């Protein structure tokens, strides 16, 4: 057996599995999306149908807000953790990164425990002011949930990027008279740019497609994944849900591809 043949044999199972359980189904999804009562225009429904459009805008705004908030939080914490050595630092890092692969459903439940009807925040506010604050089931609860699963991943990326920063650059800026704030503004944040783009894109794409959290919070907030789910299971509206998922997939993929062409590194969503 020649080496060439061997390499092909190694590759074959992957090709078969991928075609059978990924490419073929996705092709079928595209076809179903185009063959409903609306025909090809189902693909435009996401923009033309007011209800879908509103959901779409909702989802994008929520994902964008999550991304920005996560980046700000992770940058402050990541810079701090990478730049200082103090007792308990390792524990703190572990606390900030262990929820890395919690499923969305669990995150949703944790948000309920925090801000739900029997939640901690409600109990505290009830004790303090007599008024029970409950927001787990609102869009803010969903936002908190998305924050919860984005923070660990983005902190890890930012910390790795900070570690690679050349401290010489900061020292050079200081030697030229730059105050600590000016150093952050002119040297550190620009140097972290690629890490922001990469991890921001992942956070955004993940938030766009997140389903488990919204499902657990059982909110009446419309986000795209919930819309797809209800169209499919409750309304049995196969073609629209197919078209909407294709749209969702394309957006998430495009964001990541764009980020990758910007930052040159490997960018991928997960979860």
């Amino acid at each position, binding site marked *: *057996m020649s*080496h060439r043949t*061997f*390499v092909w044999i190694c*590759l074959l*199972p*992957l090709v078969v*599995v991928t075609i059978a*359980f*990924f490419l*073929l*189904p*996705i092709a*079928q*999804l595209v076809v179903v999306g185009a063959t409903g009562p609306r025909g090809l225009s189902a693909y435009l429904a996401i923009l033309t149908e007011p209800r879908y459009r509103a959901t779409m805008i909702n989802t994008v705004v929520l994902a964008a807000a999550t991304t920005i908030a996560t980046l700000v939080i992770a940058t*402050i*914490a990541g*810079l701090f*953790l990478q730049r200082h050595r*103090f007792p308990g630092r390792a524990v*703190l890092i572990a*606390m900030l*990164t*262990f929820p*890395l*692969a919690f*499923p969305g*459903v*669990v995150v*949703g*439940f944790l948000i309920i425990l*925090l801000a739900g009807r*029997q939640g*901690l925040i409600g109990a505290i506010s009830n004790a303090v002011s007599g008024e029970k604050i409950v927001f787990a089931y609102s869009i803010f609860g969903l936002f908190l949930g998305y924050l*919860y699963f984005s*923070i660990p991943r983005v902190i890890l990326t930012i910390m790795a990027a900070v570690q690679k920063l050349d401290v010489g650059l900061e020292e050079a800026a200081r030697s030229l008279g730059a105050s*600590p704030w000016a150093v952050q503004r002119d040297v550190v944040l620009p140097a972290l740019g690629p890490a922001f783009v990469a991890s921001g894109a992942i956070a955004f*794409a993940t938030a*766009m*497609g*997140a*389903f*488990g959290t919204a*499902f657990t919070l059982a909110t009446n907030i419309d986000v795209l994944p919930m819309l*797809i*789910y209800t169209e*499919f299971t409750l309304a049995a509206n*196969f073609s629209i849900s*197919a078209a909407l*998922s*294709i749209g*969702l*997939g394309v957006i*998430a*993929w495009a964001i990541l*591809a764009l980020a990758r062409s910007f930052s040159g590194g*490997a960018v*991928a*969503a*997960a979860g």
Partner: protein
Amino acid sequence: MRDRLIFLGQLGFTLLVAAFLVVPVILSLSAGVTVNYFRGIQSGITLQWVRQVWELYAGEIFLSFVIAIATLVVTLVVGVPAAYALHVRGGKLSRVIEEIITLPLAIPGLAIALALLLTYGGFGSFRRSWLFILAGHVIFTMPFMVRSVMAVFASIDIKTLDEGAASLGASPWRRFRNVIVPNAMPGILAGSLMVVTLSLGEFNLTWMLHTPLTKTLPVGLADAYASMRLEVASAYTLIFFVMIVPLLVAMQMFADEGQKR
């Protein structure tokens, strides 16, 4: 003085963020062993909820393990040779294949699940068996295995090792067993941890693909969240943490080790 204030400010902020992540977990752990969460921990500590979860959901938990192990086996058997082939072949086609198998990282699980349902929903016995869920998990976790192994290949010049073994007269299959796989071990282990962890916790795909007879652990969780009292839901979450956190810790340790090397 100024530096001290900045330090304390940042420390406080970071602690706050850590609290946001950790406090709910502690709440759920404690709720899972409290007699009555509404009345608080003074109502007593009990394992009755954990036992109840076990009675109700042992099947789901067991199936999750079966699927996770099966997913691992498939990704190993399919993914490791493929990673090797993609690495030594190089070229445009390999890059396209790599790009395609990484797409499930970008496309939401919901969309992949819909695609699988619309394609294979009609194949009754396949649709009804847990193999249907397995297919989804394999597609979702495969890129992690392939990339993790390829990352190792990229760092150790596997091509020269392979050629060296070939010059000694080893056949491709022997080389694969004796040279490639042992050298790829760190990547294979890291990838395996990732695959098992993700498969155990996968919900987005699984919720769409499951049937009443093929429920997994996270599907059961969603069930419990929707229909059980808070203590039971928490106890179930507690069981999930006990299973998943060691895997996450092992994964982190692996990543740290990789950085040191």
